[in-house]
């Protein structure tokens, strides 16, 4: 090996950019998110909605299940009923607060379970490929063949109503799309050289999956899952609307929408309220996931 000036080895150091503040991956995500006011305000909105739902028993001005025949379908702002009353004379504000508990539960819990299960299947299918991939993904395709609402109705119909069955239904419905996203992301990562480099260093498959693959698959899957929160809330509302979710008189946004629709010509504003709650929550989740997608994009 001969003669190119010896000092040339160290040129890179001189060319290197001035030492910037070193922060981790999540640090850089936060740094980008910090200036995204839409996403930040939507996050705040979600936090408020969650807090209101969690503390509903203390915040709600009245008992959500106490009906009063004298005060049926009162308009917004009637006496002590801040948001009016429903067709049984129950306070709408209290019912919305209590109903948020169930709806948010239906939005978040199934998504968490589906992300864990679907993500695991997707990563395994994407990493191993071949027959494993075929078995897992073709099974998912069977679920994909049905429209999600139809699938949810079919499963919930055969399982029966109730909170647990509703969550189970939503989880099953949400697994295939998450699995597919995880599978695509994993097979892309799988083909990159750093996975081969890790294999060449003698690492076990488990170690490679956890230290190299998961960390790269996480962000697309998380972003996608967060869009599913709003879908899950709407699906749950749909199930409740059809009588396949929680049973009345429990407060639930979907169920309220269902029972109030008969009164839509009498008190359209009141009938629209649960729909507005669902709309605001799902838009907030969608905007947050959109902001997250941008913030989690490396290379930016």
């Amino acid at each position: 090996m001969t003669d190119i000036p010896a000092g040339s080895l160290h040129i890179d150091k001189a060319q290197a950019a001035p030492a910037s503040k070193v922060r981790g991956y999540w640090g850089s995500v936060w740094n980008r998110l910090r200036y995204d006011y839409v996403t930040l305000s939507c996050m705040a909105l979600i936090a408020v909605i969650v807090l209101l739902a969690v503390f509903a028993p203390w915040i709600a001005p009245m008992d959500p299940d106490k009906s009063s025949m004298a005060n049926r379908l009162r308009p917004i702002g009637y006496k002590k009923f801040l948001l009016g009353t429903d067709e049984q004379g129950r306070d709408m504000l209290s019912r919305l607060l209590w109903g948020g508990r169930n709806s948010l539960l239906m939005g978040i819990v199934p998504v968490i379970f589906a992300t864990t299960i679907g993500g695991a299947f997707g990563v395994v299918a994407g990493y191993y490929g071949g027959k494993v991939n075929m078995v897992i993904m073709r099974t998912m395709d069977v679920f994909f063949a049905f429209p999600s609402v139809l699938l949810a109705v079919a499963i919930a119909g055969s399982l029966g109503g109730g909170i647990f069955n509703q969550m189970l239904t939503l989880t099953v419905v949400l697994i295939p799309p998450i699995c597919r996203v995880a599978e695509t992301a994993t097979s892309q990562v799988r083909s990159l050289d750093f996975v081969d480099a890790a294999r060449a260093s003698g690492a076990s498959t488990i170690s490679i999956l956890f230290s190299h693959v998961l960390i790269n698959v996480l962000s697309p899957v998380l972003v996608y899952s967060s869009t599913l929160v709003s879908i899950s809330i709407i699906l749950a509302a749909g199930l409740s609307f059809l009588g396949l979710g929680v049973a009345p008189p429990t407060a639930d946004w979907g169920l309220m929408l269902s029972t109030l629709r008969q009164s839509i010509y009498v008190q359209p504003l009141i009938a629209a309220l649960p729909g507005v709650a669902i709309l605001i929550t799902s838009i907030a989740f969608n905007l947050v996931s959109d902001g997250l997608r941008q913030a989690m994009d490396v290379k930016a």
Partner: protein
Amino acid sequence: MTDVIETTTPTPASRDRGGPAQPMLIVENIKKYFPIRAGLLNRKVAEVKAVDDISFYVLKGETLGIVGESGCGKSTLARLLMYLIEKDEGHLVLDGDPVGEKAGVPLDGLRRSLQMVFQDSYSSLNPRLPIESSIAYGPKVQGASAKSAKEQARALLEKVGLKADRFGQRYPHELSGGQKQRVNIARALALDPRLLILDEAVSALDKSVEAQVLNLLGDLKEQLNLTYIFISHDLHVVKYISDRVLVMYLGQVVEIGPVDKIYEDPKHPYTQALLACRLSMDPDERVDAAPLAGDPPNPVNPPSGCRFHTRCPHAEDVCMSKMPALGDALRSDPSEHLAACHMVHAGSGHSKAPNPEVTTLPLWQGEMR
């Protein structure tokens, strides 16, 4: 180059099992055919003969250059040697011990002795890990504590010319191409290998950075007593860094020999064409016509006889019917120059083949120039 091994031996002598005469790595009749599947039942309809019966050896402390055009199986060969893809046939012998067989070194031992630097410096580093963690990963997998692995990673960063304090916590996208390739080299060195496979390791870098990295590789080779297999399509770089050169065409070795002999007196028409493709520093000697026309033949259906005959200016009937032998690459002396061409082998039936009685070098070389 080759005397380096005698003079500097920083590593314990116990690692050198077979002695200086034992080649670092012997590759014996290695084969890899990729099946092409099609149809409803996914039946195998054909095979891509990516690596077809290749044999060679690498001496301790030498640099073996492997050249050939894109798609000739260079990278497949590298991955076969690393056991990143399963070989169909053949044997590897690492410093006298067969690899992956009952009596020989286990796969894990091979992984510690053999490491690879990948071509694409970006995709070969995990974008979500600080480079220090990427380098420390290998030692950790092999049982080092997190602390000692980290210290080793920092020491290696310094060794490849990157300040650990400044760069250790950076992410791959915060580094330039040359810096990333240094990190890749550091990562490969982290397991303290004896043989480094450099698969187009400098091809993606611009010329000034390429020179830096080549110098770094030269320095490291002397310091750490390394052996290199240097795969590249850049003939200038291969000439600069190699002791011996192996030329591949369509999954086979067509020529192997010491770098000077190959570059000054190429015997195989393919090697001659490759060398003629090199850009000259002198604008008066510019190459007007491409010495090699057309694409290489389909490796699914390689030509009969000599695989190069479809593009060879000297092709005759014998080339289409009979595959020329390279000679015994495993038993030949490292200074020997072998070529798989009928024009080299006496009595092959080619009109330009040397007369069997004449033992001196053939004259056809001179006629051609």
